[in-house]
C-alpha cells in the first residue's frame, strides 16, 4: 500500500468535497475556516506531490510542467483564501448594515457567500485537474470546468455590469472551448494515419508517436487549440472578456482569475506545443506564438493608455503579460525558461496588485483612477503596496519580473531576432510610462474631499497577504530556491528549451 497513490486523488477530492460542504453550511465563520483549511491541506499536498505515480491508465499524472503550474495555483489559492476571511467579513458587514455596495456606493444585494466559497473550491478542483491531466480530452473537460466554476463568482455582486461581464465571459470562453474541441477532433484525425490504427489522446502516447502524424492535420489542430485555449488565456484579439470579468468580479476572484486561471489555459497551449515539438514542427508553433504574443502586448499597451478604471488597467496588464509568456515560449531556448519563470512572477505580482486594489476599493468605494488621490495618506500600507506592485509588474529591478523579462529579451537578441527584441522592449517601456502616470497620480498628492477619513490602521488580514506575495516576488529577483530552479529547468526541457 503506497500512500503516494492517493496524492493525486486527494488533490482533486479535498477541494471538491469541501466545496460541497461549503454549499451546505449555514453559518459564515466555520465556512471560512473550512476554506482556509482546505487550501492549506491542498498546498501541503502539492508540495509533497513530487513523484506521485500516474493513475487510471496514465490519464492522471504529474510531470514537471504540470507540477509547476499546480504549485502556482495552489499557493496563490492559499494566500487568497486567507485574504478572503477579512474581505468576506467586511463585505457581509457592509451588506448587513446599510445594504451598501462598497464598490459604487449604491444599494445592492450580493450573491450568497456559501455559493462564492463553494465556487472558489470547485474552481480550485478544476484547475488542479487541468494541471494533473495527461489526457488531452480530460484537459479539455477540466478547462471547461474552470469556466463553469468561475462564472457565478463574477456575478457575485448582483449588478448590471457584473451580469454583462459574466455573460461575455461565458459566451466568449464557450466559443474558445468549442474551437479547442474542434482542435482535439483534428488531432484525432491526424493520428489516423498511424499503422497501428488510431490512438487515444494520451499525452505520453502522442509525444511518442507524433513523428508519424499527418503533418497538415496536426498543424490545423494546433491552430484551433491555440486559438481556443488562447481565448481563455486572454491572448489578443480574443481577450475581450478579460477586462470585464476582472474588473467586475470581487477582487479576490480577480486575483485568482489573473494569477491562476490564465496560467491553466496557457498550460493547454503548452501541451499542444509539446506535441508539435515531438512531431518536429516546433518552429510552426513558435512563429504563431510570437505573433500572438506581440499583438497581445501591443494591444494591451494601447488600452492601458486611456484607462480610467484601475482594475481594468490591471486586467489589460494581464493581457500584456500573457503576451510575454507566449512570446517567451515562441522564441524557444532560454526564452522558454524565462517564460515559465515569468508565469510565476506574474501570478504573484498580479495577485498582490488585485488584493491591494480590493483594499483600495473597500476604503474608497470607487474603481476610477480619477477619484483616487493621495493613497499614501489615506491608506499608507496599501498605498505603498500599490506603488511597489506597480514597480514589480512593470519589470523594474530587483524584482523577479525583471529577471524573467530580461531573460526573454536576452533570448531574442541571442537568436538574432532584433526586430522582436526592439518591439518587445519598446512596448515594455511604453507600458511602464503609462502605468507610472496612472499609479503615481493615485498614490501622491492630497486625498480628495471625503477620502481623507479619520486615520485608522488597516486590518492585518487585508494587508498581510499582499505583503507576503510582494516579499516572494522580491525574493525571486535575488534568489531562486533550489527546488523551484530544478522544477523550472525540468519543465523547460519538456518544452524543448534550454538554459
Amino acid at each position, binding site marked *: 500500500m503506497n500512500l503516494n497513490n492517493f496524492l493525486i486523488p486527494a488533490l482533486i477530492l479535498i477541494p471538491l468535497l469541501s466545496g460541497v460542504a461549503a454549499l451546505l453550511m449555514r453559518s459564515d465563520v466555520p465556512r471560512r475556516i473550512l476554506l482556509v483549511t482546505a487550501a492549506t491541506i491542498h498546498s501541503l499536498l502539492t508540495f509533497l506531490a513530487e513523484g506521485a505515480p500516474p493513475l487510471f491508465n496514465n490519464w492522471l499524472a504529474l510531470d514537471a510542467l504540470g507540477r509547476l503550474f499546480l504549485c502556482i495555483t495552489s499557493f496563490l489559492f492559499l494566500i487568497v483564501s486567507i485574504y478572503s476571511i477579512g474581505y468576506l467579513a467586511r463585505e457581509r458587514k457592509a451588506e448587513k448594515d446599510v445594504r451598501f455596495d462598497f464598490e459604487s456606493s449604491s444599494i445592492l444585494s450580493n450573491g450568497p457567500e456559501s455559493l462564492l466559497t463553494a465556487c472558489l473550491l470547485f474552481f480550485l478542483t478544476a484547475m488542479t485537474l487541468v494541471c494533473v491531466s495527461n489526457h488531452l*480530452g480530460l484537459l479539455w473537460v477540466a478547462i471547461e470546468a474552470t469556466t463553469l466554476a468561475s462564472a457565478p463568482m463574477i456575478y457575485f455582486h448582483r449588478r448590471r455590469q457584473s451580469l*454583462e461581464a459574466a455573460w461575455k465571459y461565458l*459566451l466568449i470562453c*464557450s466559443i474558445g472551448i*468549442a474551437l479547442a*474541441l474542434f482542435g*482535439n477532433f483534428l488531432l*484525432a*484525425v491526424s493520428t489516423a494515419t498511424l499503422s497501428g490504427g488510431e490512438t487515444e489522446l494520451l499525452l505520453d502516447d502522442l509525444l511518442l508517436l507524433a513523428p508519424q502524424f499527418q503533418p497538415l492535420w496536426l498543424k490545423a489542430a494546433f491552430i484551433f487549440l491555440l486559438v481556443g485555449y488562447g481565448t481563455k488565456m486572454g491572448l489578443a484579439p480574443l481577450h475581450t472578456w478579460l477586462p470585464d470579468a476582472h474588473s467586475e468580479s470581487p477582487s479576490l476572484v480577480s486575483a485568482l482569475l489573473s494569477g491562476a486561471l490564465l496560467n491553466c489555459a496557457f498550460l493547454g497551449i503548452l501541451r499542444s506545443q509539446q506535441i508539435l515539438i515531438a512531431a518536429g514542427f516546433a518552429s510552426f508553433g513558435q512563429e504563431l506564438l510570437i505573433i500572438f504574443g506581440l499583438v497581445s502586448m501591443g494591444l494591451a499597451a494601447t488600452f492601458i493608455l486611456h484607462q480610467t478604471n484601475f482594475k481594468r488597467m490591471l486586467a489589460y496588464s494581464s493581457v500584456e503579460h500573457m503576451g510575454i509568456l507566449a512570446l517567451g515560449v515562441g522564441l524557444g531556448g532560454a526564452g522558454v525558461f524565462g517564460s515559465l519563470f515569468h508565469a510565476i512572477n506574474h501570478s504573484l505580482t498580479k495577485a498582490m496588485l488585485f488584493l491591494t486594489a480590493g483594499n483600495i476599493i473597500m476604503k474608497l468605494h470607487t474603481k476610477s483612477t480619477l477619484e483616487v488621490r493621495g493613497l499614501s495618506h489615506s491608506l499608507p500600507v496599501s498605498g505603498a503596496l500599490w506603488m511597489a506592485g506597480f514597480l514589480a509588474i512593470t519589470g523594474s529591478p530587483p524584482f523577479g519580473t525583471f529577471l524573467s523579462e530580461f531573460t526573454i529579451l536576452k533570448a531574442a537578441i541571442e537568436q538574432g531576432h532584433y526586430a522582436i527584441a526592439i518591439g518587445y522592449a519598446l512596448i515594455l517601456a511604453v507600458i511602464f510610462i503609462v502605468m507610472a502616470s496612472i499609479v503615481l497620480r493615485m498614490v501622491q498628492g492630497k486625498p480628495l474631499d471625503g477620502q481623507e477619513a479619520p486615520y485608522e490602521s488597516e486590518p492585518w488580514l487585508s494587508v498581510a497577504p499582499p505583503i507576503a506575495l510582494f516579499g516572494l516576488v522580491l525574493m525571486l529577483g535575488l534568489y531562486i530556491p533550489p527546488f523551484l530552479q530544478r522544477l523550472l529547468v525540468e519543465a523547460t526541457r519538456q518544452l524543448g528549451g534550454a538554459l
Partner: protein
Amino acid sequence: MNDLIFVLLILTGFVFLGSGRLQFAIRTLALQGILLGLIPLLGNWQGLWGRVLSIATISLVIKGLVLPYFLTRAMHKSKVMHEDHPFVGFTASMLVGIICLGASFWLASRLPVIASMPSQIAVAVSFFYLFVGLFVIMSRRKALTQVLGYLVLENGAYIFGVAYAIEAPFLVELGVLLDVFVAVFVMGIIIFHISKSFDHIDTDQLSTLVG
C-alpha cells in the same frame, strides 16, 4: 445518398441565417440536430456499431429534442420572439453565408483527404458551420439568438467529430457534454437573470463595459 445529408445541412445553415423569428430558428436547429444524428450511421465503422448507434441516439435526443425544448421555454419565459434589428440584416446575412461557404470549401480543399470519409464535403460543411456560428454571434443583439449561434458553431465541431473522429474514445461524447453545459448553464441561469434584471434579453443593452 451520403452527400445528401451534408447538402441538407448547408441548406439549413442558410435557412438559419435568414430566420428572424426565434421559434423558426430553433426548429431549424432541431432539424440540424436530427441530421447530425444520422451522420454517424453513414460511416463504415466495422465493429463499432454499438458505439455508433448510441452516439446517433444521444445526438438525436439531445440536439433534436431536449435542446430545442429548453430553448423554446427560455424564449417564452423571456418573451422575446423575434430578432428585431440585427446588426447585419437577414438578406446581407445570406450573402455573408455564401462567402463563408466559399471560404470553407477553399479551406477544406487545402487539407489532405481522409481515408474513412463518409462524404467529400463533410469537412467543408463543418467549417461552414463554424463560420456561420461565429457570424451569428457577432451580428445579432438578443442573448438567445447568440446562444443559437453558439450552438451552430458547436454543431460545426460536432459534424467533424461524428464524421471522422468517432474512433477516438470519449471525444465525441465531450461534444455532447458541451451541449448539456450550454443548456443548463448558459441558457437556464444567465438568461433567467438577464430577463429578470432588464425585462428583456437584448445584449445590446449590456454595453456599459467598453474600452
